[in-house]
């Protein structure tokens, strides 16, 4: 368990270093994800222990957003003023994003399968 947790942290650290060194606009953990993915491809499989640690982290992914979400208390005043634009933007823009992404994927994906 601890070994694979160390591996995950090493990937993240390597990602952070890579981003800092190259000035890439990608965040460190995303670079770390790419590094771990490359490692899995070289290894040609997911070790059982890594699957356990990774799935434990991902199984409670929503919990990890609570501390940042509580930050809403810092902006109650601004949100009280701008609640209407913000609410409309969140609902309409998020709905449009879901529709656009799914529609393009469905159209292109279907074309690929039939060919």
């Amino acid at each position, binding site marked *: 368990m601890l070994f694979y947790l160390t591996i*995950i*942290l090493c990937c*993240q650290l390597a*990602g952070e270093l890579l981003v800092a060194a190259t000035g890439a*606009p*990608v*965040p*460190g*953990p*995303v670079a*770390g994800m790419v590094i*771990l993915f490359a490692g899995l*491809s070289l290894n040609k499989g*997911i070790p059982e222990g890594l699957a356990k640690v*990774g*799935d434990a*982290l*991902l*199984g409670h*992914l*929503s*919990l*990890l*957003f*609570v*501390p*940042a*979400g*509580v*930050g*809403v*208390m810092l*902006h109650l005043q*601004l*949100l009280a003023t*701008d609640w*209407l*634009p*913000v609410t*409309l*933007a*969140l*609902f309409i*823009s*998020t*709905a*449009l*994003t*879901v529709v*656009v*992404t*799914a*529609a*393009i*994927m*469905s159209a*292109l*994906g279907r*074309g*690929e399968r039939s060919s």
Partner: protein
Amino acid sequence: MKSIESLRDIWVYLAASPLLHLTLTLIAYQIGSWIYRKGRLNPLLNPVLIAVGIVVSLLLLTKTSYSTYFDGAQFVHFLLGPATVALALPLYRQFETVKHSAPAILASIIAGSLTASLTAVFIVWLMGGAGDTLISIAPKSVTAPVAMGISERLGGLPSLTAVLVILTGITGAMLGPPILNLIGVKDWAARGLAIGTASHGIGTARALQVNEVAGAFSGLAMGLNALATALLLPILWRLIF
């Protein structure tokens, strides 16, 4: 009298240690999850929303500052990084499917990324929102740590962005499935991709619970959308403003 004083001493001691707010975060989330399960995973009963509501109410009632709270909660917040790295696992498991439809995936995620940023900024501008709100909402569909970086680069408020990102995640997790049903998208890959692009990790957390394929595509979309938005938005911003 003495016992009241010692009780207050204990409270002062606990309130200053990270343990109290770390535990509060976990308990609030347990309550949120319990309500979510009791409500048969109804997306309106999002556990993050419930947990945030409980914690914010308690902090405001006890006049506790966010930075005091964060001293404890940072241990949970920290795990976002390793969890993002771990998204390589569902991605690897679905790699064969993903590889097969790479052009379709890229096209839909880039279109989704632009839709998410531009429509949000346009609506806030149209409704006369403040400048801070306008900038901070632009990266709203990107996973929190990345979105905060983008917001800072554009001159927004990173902590406001974090909140808007979470609210977007909850909105997408709530609205996504019914909208996809409404427009008749049944393919798990397309559903996952749409949810992940619109609502990052919160949508992915929900997609993982529903279907492994949807979860993997959602995780992939979250990663690629972070990449696409981090690359495209600063360039577009310079062109528009």
